[in-house]
């Protein structure tokens, strides 16, 4: 147990060394947040309520998006895949303990750092300047934080499954690159899922992508927060099981075929 | 007659987090056209900094450097046409394309007339045995093959000066021999001035007529290999097999300090100083009194001398500061 705690701290500290990147990342988030805010303010001058969301919901969406963007679409997306291709990954399999859990925990340490250093300050500052809809109680804020952490975990799990393609083919990037824009759109990282026409909206809400952003936004605005958290927990469990299975199959393949 | 390379009071100061560091603290030397100079020194001594200043990619903090009549950092592009640079670890070739394409691009880059380029390329292809490699992508070549190709590409424009940085690193014996043979030819036949920065002391002893050693930004030695041995009191070893293993080799006053340092069975090892007695004289002395089956002479390894210099020992008077 202590080993995993140490891994978490190691991940946290590792991310902390990228100080300049943290500042740049914050600047990027701030800029896009400001531009998106302007766009939504202009849009909501035409209509008061769209897809069940009012302007306050939309602004909250914008700033939760900015808070979580760097946490989900991390700069080290390809690390696992690259270590698989280079052969370094074998070391992970030789160590005692659960490799999947270890990878998850280390990644979580890093994303927790991002949440603490980028996400929280950005969201907090925006809440001071704009009429966001955030939980007023300490309990509500705690749930929001939990939702953010769960989103980070699901993010890792999905990234892992994508990197797992590297176990089978050297062209893992090609697949991801084509799918990435669609993932951005489908997970609500371009426009809120609530704006989608009914059939697309159901599709988007049903998949694991909704756990990344749609769920935390709902926990923040209080619209179906409980259901959102449940969705996240369900996907953490499901994706965890699938991920573990994939890793087992992949490791066996690695051992049989070599690096 | 102006020299090919003139360096006078050259300095380079870097600003690091720990404060200003003088990587090159005032060095002077002249290299005449056609010389083959080895440039050695421990890591961080200032070797690559000096080469960078000579090739124009680094601005000196003080002093003067002139290469082939040009001031490097002021006339970088003009100088670039007259020098060749080869980095041991990094490639200047076009990685994914056939080797022939790289040579073609060099032609256009240096604006070489087609006929003379073709002639030179054929010559280099022959000398370095590049024929079968021409259609292959550079990334498929072995390190030895790639290094031969790098050399060809670097000297294709027939530069007057060639700067080499660790060209034999990681190469097997055969590849090293090929590279050294080519460099020797280049220096002898084309009179190309060559500055060879290296840790490989065999490179130095095999190729360089002159050795400059830099340490902590200052030159601690500048002269020939032979003078190096003399200056640092290197000794040679005479190994002699005597007919009678019971013989005791006694040294006399005319042995000039030569000593028997080891005896095993028939074999005796006699250490003698260069400036004391010549090998011929020593052999004559031994043959006069004893029956000898066989003998050989072991030359000193400059590695030992270099190591001592790097450690800061036995600095001869008048050399360096």
């Amino acid at each position, binding site marked *: 147990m202590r080993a995993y705690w140490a891994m978490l701290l190691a991940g946290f500290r590792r991310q902390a060394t990228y100080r*300049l*990147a943290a*500042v*740049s*990342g914050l*600047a*990027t988030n701030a*800029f*896009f947040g400001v*531009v998106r805010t*302007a*766009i939504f303010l*202009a*849009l*909501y001058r*035409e*209509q008061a309520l*769209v*897809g069940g969301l009012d302007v306050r919901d939309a602004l909250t969406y914008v700033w939760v998006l900015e808070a979580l963007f760097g946490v989900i679409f991390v700069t080290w997306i390809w690390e696992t895949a690259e270590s698989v291709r280079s052969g370094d990954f074998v070391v992970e399999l030789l160590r005692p303990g659960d490799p999947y859990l270890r990878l998850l925990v280390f990644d979580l340490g890093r994303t927790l750092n991002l949440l603490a250093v980028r996400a929280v300050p950005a969201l907090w500052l925006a809440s001071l300047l704009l009429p966001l809809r955030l939980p007023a109680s300490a309990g509500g804020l705690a749930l929001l934080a939990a939702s953010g952490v769960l989103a980070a975990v699901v993010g890792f799990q999905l990234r892992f499954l994508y990197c797992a393609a590297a176990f089978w083919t050297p*062209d893992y*990037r*090609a697949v991801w*690159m*084509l799918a*990435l*824009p*669609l993932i*951005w*759109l489908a997970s609500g990282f*371009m*426009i809120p899922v609530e*704006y*989608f026409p009914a059939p697309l909206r159901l599709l988007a809400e049903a998949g694991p992508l909704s756990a990344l952003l749609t769920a935390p936004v709902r926990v923040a605005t209080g619209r179906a927060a409980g259901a959102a958290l449940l969705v996240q927990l369900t996907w953490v469990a499901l994706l965890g099981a699938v991920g573990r299975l994939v890793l087992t199959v992949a490791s066996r393949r690695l051992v049989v075929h070599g690096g | 007659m102006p020299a090919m390379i003139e360096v006078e009071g050259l300095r*380079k100061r*870097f600003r690091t987090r720990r404060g200003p560091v003088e*990587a090159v603290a005032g060095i002077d030397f002249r290299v005449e056209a056609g010389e083959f100079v080895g440039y050695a020194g421990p890591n961080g001594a200032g070797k690559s900094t000096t080469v*960078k200043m000579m*090739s*124009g*990619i*680094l*601005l000196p903090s003080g002093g003067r450097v002139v290469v082939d009549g040009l001031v490097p*950092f002021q006339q*970088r*592009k*003009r100088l*670039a046409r007259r*020098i060749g640079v080869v980095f041991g670890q*990094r490639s*200047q070739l*076009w*990685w*994914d*394309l056939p080797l022939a*394409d790289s040579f073609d*691009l060099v032609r*256009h*880059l*240096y*604006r070489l007339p087609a006929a003379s380029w073709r002639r030179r390329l054929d010559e280099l292809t022959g000398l370095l045995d590049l024929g079968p490699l021409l259609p292959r992508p550079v990334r498929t070549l072995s390190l030895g093959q790639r290094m031969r190709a790098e050399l060809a590409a670097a000297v294709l424009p027939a530069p007057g000066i060639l700067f080499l940085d660790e060209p034999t690193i990681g190469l097997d014996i055969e590849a090293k021999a090929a590279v050294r043979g080519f460099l020797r030819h280049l220096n002898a036949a084309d009179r190309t001035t060559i500055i060879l920065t290296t840790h490989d002391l065999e490179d130095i002893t095999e190729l360089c007529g002159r050795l400059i050693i830099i340490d902590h930004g200052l030159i601690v030695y500048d002269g020939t290999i032979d003078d190096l041995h003399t200056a640092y009191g290197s000794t040679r070893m005479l190994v002699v097999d005597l007919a009678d293993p019971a013989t005791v080799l006694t040294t006399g006053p005319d042995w000039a300090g030569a000593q028997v340092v080891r005896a095993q069975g028939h074999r005796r090892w006699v250490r003698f100083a260069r400036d004391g007695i010549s090998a011929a004289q020593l052999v004559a002395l031994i043959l006069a009194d004893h029956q000898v089956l066989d003998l050989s002479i072991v030359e000193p390894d400059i590695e030992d001398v270099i190591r001592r210099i790097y450690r800061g020992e036995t600095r001869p008077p008048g050399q360096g500061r």
Partner: protein
Amino acid sequence: MAEGLLVYLRLAAAAVRANARRPVFLAARTLASGTIVAAEVAGMVLLLDRFGTVGGWRAAEVVLLAGLAFASQGLALTLGTRLEADDLSLLVRKGTFDQVLTRPVSPLGWIVASYVDTRYLGRLLAGVGAVVWAGARAGVEWTPGRVGLAALAVTCAAAIVFGVLLLSAAFTFLTVQGSEATNVLVYGGTYLTSYPMQIYGSALRLLFLWVVPLGLAIYVPALGVLGRQGPPGVPASLAWLTAPAAAAFLAAGGLAWRGGVRRYVGAGS
């Protein structure tokens, strides 16, 4: 001079040949680059479908802006993607930039030519496609004048984005590590100019019309194409300023680059 240019063309040709050796990978990357535009446009259309208009502009008109913005970004990145912070700092740290300096060519010319990235042509094409689609939807009559305005927008905005990349490169030489922050102006700028400028507050308008004149290069010519009048201070007739503003900004970027290289040569690595 012309023969000097030929060298860079040959270097670029070599780069393209090298890329073409993995055609499937290249095709995938080019397609992916275009898919980003398609996704953004889809999002935009879905958005405006719900709201009707933004700042008084209909969906097709906004997509026209986005098409111009992405096309120019694609053009600029095809030439200058290696100047971005991460890529350039890697070049410097590996010592490749030193090698470039030992060649008898301009280092900028070498980097641009040798690292031409054809996958961003996907973005250029997708952007142009979006402009064509939007023009049809918005009922634009493509007179030679209007086509000229669109071309003006794309080339001038591309020049400005390239100027930003040069500024970013100069900053990378200064800090060695480089900074993601300069990417904000490139990617954020494209995103911002995809929407009509009148919706933004005075600070953003000031920045993107007069300092980094991306808005000027995209928005004003678009006004001409769509037959619209801009807000006070930004009339459609301002289109004449687009080219000079882009040239001035590009020149500033060039100066910054020269300063950056000079500092690099002075400071070493």
